[in-house]
């Protein structure tokens, strides 16, 4: 269709088939618009033009732009998940450390208590032993002094007995008997 002066297209000066609806009778024997080959060229020219521009803009500019954002978001989410995972494992580790420290401390406290108790027991035993030894020594000393006193007393008793016996003999029979005789006589009796 060559140039048309008026917008109402009609195959001006062209063969009849140009126009799809040549006035009035509209679609009488005229070409069905989609099959009117006269219109193919302008359609295809503009299709080629617009689609090429669209394709170039899509592949060079728009799709990479959208893809970038989507990828970035996906990466970011992945990164955040990784971080969360790491933090969780860190936390687990910290909890394990804490629990270990707690168990150690408890064991430590137990051993300190035991040691202290043992030390105290030992000290008590030692003191007890010392006191026992002291007492034993005192008792031994006391017994010894009692023994001495008794021996001394017994010795005095002999003397007194000898003296008494000498005096008694003198009174009774008026004879002087030597002290040694009396002593031997006494000791022979007692033994």
């Amino acid at each position, binding site marked *: *269709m*060559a*140039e*048309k002066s008026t*917008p*109402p*297209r009609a195959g001006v000066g062209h063969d009849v088939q140009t126009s*799809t*609806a040549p006035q*009035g009778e*509209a*679609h009488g024997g005229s070409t*069905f*618009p*989609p*099959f*009117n080959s*006269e*219109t*193919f*060229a*302008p*359609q*295809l*020219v*503009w*299709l*080629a*033009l*617009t*689609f090429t*521009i*669209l*394709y170039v*803009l*899509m*592949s060079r*500019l*728009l*799709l990479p*732009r*959208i*893809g*970038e*954002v*989507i990828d*970035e*978001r996906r990466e*970011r989410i992945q990164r955040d998940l990784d971080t969360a995972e790491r933090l969780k494992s860190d936390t687990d580790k910290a909890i394990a450390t804490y629990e270990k420290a707690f168990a150690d401390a408890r064991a430590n406290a137990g051993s300190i208590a035991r040691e202290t108790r043992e030390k105290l027991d030992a000290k008590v035993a030692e003191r007890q032993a010392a006191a026992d030894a002291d007492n034993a020594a005192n008792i031994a000393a006391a017994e010894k002094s009692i023994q001495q006193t008794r021996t001394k007393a017994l010795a005095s008793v002999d003397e007194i007995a000898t003296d008494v016996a000498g005096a008694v003999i003198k009174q009774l029979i008026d004879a002087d008997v030597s002290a040694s005789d009396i002593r031997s006589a006494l000791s022979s009796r007692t033994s």
Partner: protein
Amino acid sequence: MAAEGHGHSPIEQFEIRELLPINIFGIDASLTNSGAYMLVALGLIVGFLYFSTGGRSLVPTRLQSISELLYEFVANTVRENVGNQGMQFFPLVFSLFIFVLVLNLLGMIPIPGITFTVTSHIAITASLALMVISIVIFYGLYKHGLGFFKIFVPSGVPLALYPLLIPIEIISFISRPISLSVRLFANMLAGHIALKIFAGFIGVLLGAGAWAILAPLPLALTVALTALEVLVAVLQAYVFAVLTCIYLSDAVHGSH
């Protein structure tokens, strides 16, 4: 021209009207309503995708979500049908899908005397289909050499059947661009003609005295058909994209 009196023909809406005569080296490159609609579609698509992703925010805005949904949707379609090697064709499939989709939908917006559906013209759909098939053939030959023609030889079939099956495969291959283009063209054409006819009934009934009482019937039908046509517009764009992917899969993977 639809304005003047005889605007009841359901065919009129498909007429190509010249807006700006241009002639380049003897080729008629006039800007027509078809060309203008394509320019508008181009502007809408590019403008929307550009400005909706302007913020590139990690938490997408509503418009950015739409762009991203479209992106993911087409990307998944390509990945599922062609595989990851097919992603080099993603811009092509996306362009085809969005171009056909927007042109189909633009044709659904009624503007008296202007509304035009670019995809209701066989020249457009056939060109797109031929482009797809050419890419399939050229890429297939580039990738597999003459081995590409093995797609015509079904595997696991006794030799005796080859003379029968190979012609069938060739015919089915050749009919692909035809079915691809005719499917879209016929859907758009038939849908818009049906719409126009039923919408025309409303006017006819209103002007027919007592019969005007029946006018709501075709009105209701027109509303229902409009909804159906919107569905068809989206569906056909998707079908075009999916079939493109399936054909490209042949080129990428060779014989099936």
